[in-house]
């Protein structure tokens, strides 16, 4: 009879760990895989170095006129540099830029405590931000009292307009979407059909049509002389349009909550709204964070469509700069700049949603 001696833990052989081990099992495991890997590497070699050269190494960064770029073979960032104020603030009077800066600065300052773990009054602060911040921001942008000069909404533009449209769309479409999703699952036939019709109507038409109708058709139906701000109409259009999508995303989450959760809440005597607000929605929304953020990202990018009703969001204002006779021929730089700004915002949203999912995971699957 042999006595068992415990075997010591040995390090794995070198060829299954590290860079070599990884590429062996992932890139070169079969002949086909090897061929595909080599082909992909070749493509990367073809595309990436010239791109880096164009964007960074050969690009012109300094100067204020077109002439500065004459010699360079890469991108002419001078174009973006001289126009940056317009890209950010639209046609807002230059002397009033501080108002926009203050508005966004305020948001950052107000939002910081929300990310501090130990801060206790997160709920109250969030409510304050949701209710009062829009009012303050509107005051700052629009002016007209408190000694601020009035700036018409037609002067708003650039990135700040994009952010406002997206912000309003996001803040309005989430609660609207929740209400619509609950309505669609309601047992009351009238409530249910109103929600179904609403959702299916808004999902069935393209956003462009919605924007067109809001700016061209709506005034025909309104009484003569009612002046209904174009920007406001676009905001309402975007909010209603996106809330229909949001409603369907949230409905998916609601459907995934087991019946037992509703029953337990009912059995404890919680009213419909309390059981929704305390039990069902927190779980349902958590389940569909990826879908919600997906909708937010789509919304953010869809704001560029306001261009067709004559609002100058970031993309529109960049495109209108291409027409400047002094700067003809720099549209690629403009588009690359616009794309990277949109990408930064959308990517941040996506990362934030991932971290939120992680944070809210309480280690269970039911």
């Amino acid at each position, binding site marked *: 009879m042999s006595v068992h001696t415990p075997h010591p833990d040995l390090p794995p052989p070198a060829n299954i760990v590290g860079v070599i081990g990884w590429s062996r099992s992932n890139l070169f495991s079969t002949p086909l895989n090897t061929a595909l890997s080599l082909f992909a590497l070749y493509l990367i070699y073809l595309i990436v170095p010239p791109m880096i050269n164009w964007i960074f190494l050969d690009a012109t960064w300094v100067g204020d006129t077109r002439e500065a770029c004459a010699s360079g073979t890469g991108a002419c960032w001078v174009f973006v540099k001289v126009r940056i104020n317009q890209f950010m603030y639209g046609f807002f009077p230059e002397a009033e830029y501080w108002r926009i800066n203050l508005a966004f600065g305020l948001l950052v300052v107000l939002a910081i405590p929300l990310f501090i773990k130990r801060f206790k009054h997160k709920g109250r602060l969030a409510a304050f931000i949701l209710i009062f911040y829009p009012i303050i921001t509107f005051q700052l942008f629009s002016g007209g009292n408190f000694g601020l000069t009035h700036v018409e909404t037609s002067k708003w533009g650039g990135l700040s307009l994009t952010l406002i449209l997206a912000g309003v769309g996001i803040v309005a479409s989430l609660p609207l979407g929740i209400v619509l999703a609950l309505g669609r699952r309601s047992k009351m036939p009238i409530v249910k059909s109103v929600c179904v019709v609403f959702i299916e109507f808004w999902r069935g038409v393209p956003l462009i049509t919605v924007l067109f109708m809001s700016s061209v058709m709506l005034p025909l139906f309104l009484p003569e002389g009612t002046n209904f701000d174009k920007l406001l109409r676009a905001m309402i259009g975007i909010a209603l349009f996106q809330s229909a999508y949001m409603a369907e995303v949230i409905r998916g989450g609601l459907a995934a909550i*087991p019946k*037992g*959760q509703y*029953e*337990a*809440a*009912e*059995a*404890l*005597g*919680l*009213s419909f709204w*309390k059981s929704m607000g*305390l*039990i069902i929605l*927190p*779980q349902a929304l*958590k389940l569909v964070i990826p879908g919600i953020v997906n909708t937010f990202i789509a919304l953010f990018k869809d704001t560029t469509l306001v261009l067709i009703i004559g609002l100058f969001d970031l993309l529109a204002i960049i495109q209108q700069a291409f027409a400047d006779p002094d700067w003809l021929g720099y549209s690629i730089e403009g588009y690359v700049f616009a794309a990277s700004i949109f990408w930064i915002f959308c990517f941040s949203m996506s990362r934030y949603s991932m971290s939120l999912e992680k944070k*809210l995971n*309480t*280690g*269970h*699957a*039911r």
Partner: protein
Amino acid sequence: MSNTDNASSPSHASDDVTIQLRGVHKWYGQFHVLKDINLEVKRGERIVICGPSGSGKSTMIRCINRLEEHQQGQIIVDGTELTDDVKHIDQVRKEVGMVFQHFNLFPHLTVLENCCLAPIWVRKMPRKEAEGVAMRYLEKVKIPEQAKKYPGQLSGGQQQRVAIARSLCMNPNIMLFDEPTSALDPEMIKEVLDTMIELAESGMTMLCVTHEMGFAKTVANRVIFMDGGEIIEENEPHEFFNNPQSDRTQLFLSQILQH
């Protein structure tokens, strides 16, 4: 767990009958699930309901807190008749706790929050006080040390005990149990049954759907046998097990006692 402060429960004119079902019928579409159910439960009584699968046991006890609606007959709980009136339903649900087969704890809340939720939002208890009450009941079910954990981190038996504590935090007069041990591994059944026995000893009115015949023998005042949506037989446990009257009861008992 004894009747401490029942200030909010309605005073009863006379008797100590707390649940009354009179000629209750229920249909699911065309399907007649409950047929002429008549039942009276006295305060402090402990009733075990058994019967084959699909016989309507769950449906019957779920009618008592209106998780299911009955279509004919009368259900009166603690002096309040269950009708479409939401006030009546809320009143009854405040007095009736329920424990489910699959626990149905709220997975996004900690054990303590699960227990505090209804006292705070339904009874309007201040949070501090609700936490005190919750901890007291968590101690009763012997898991105060799990208060800060999430339900997903507990074993099945622990989860079911939390579910019992959660119901008790509302200080109910009546507790309904729907197969509380059927989803548990054998080694966890005992801890839940022990908790229920302790609850029974404290004088709680209990209706338990269960196939734990040992539990029925030790704590029940009455055992009710249902089949095909009807109450077939109703007797005190000793008689029920040793001297079943109907063939169907005998058949059922012979089947479950074999295992």
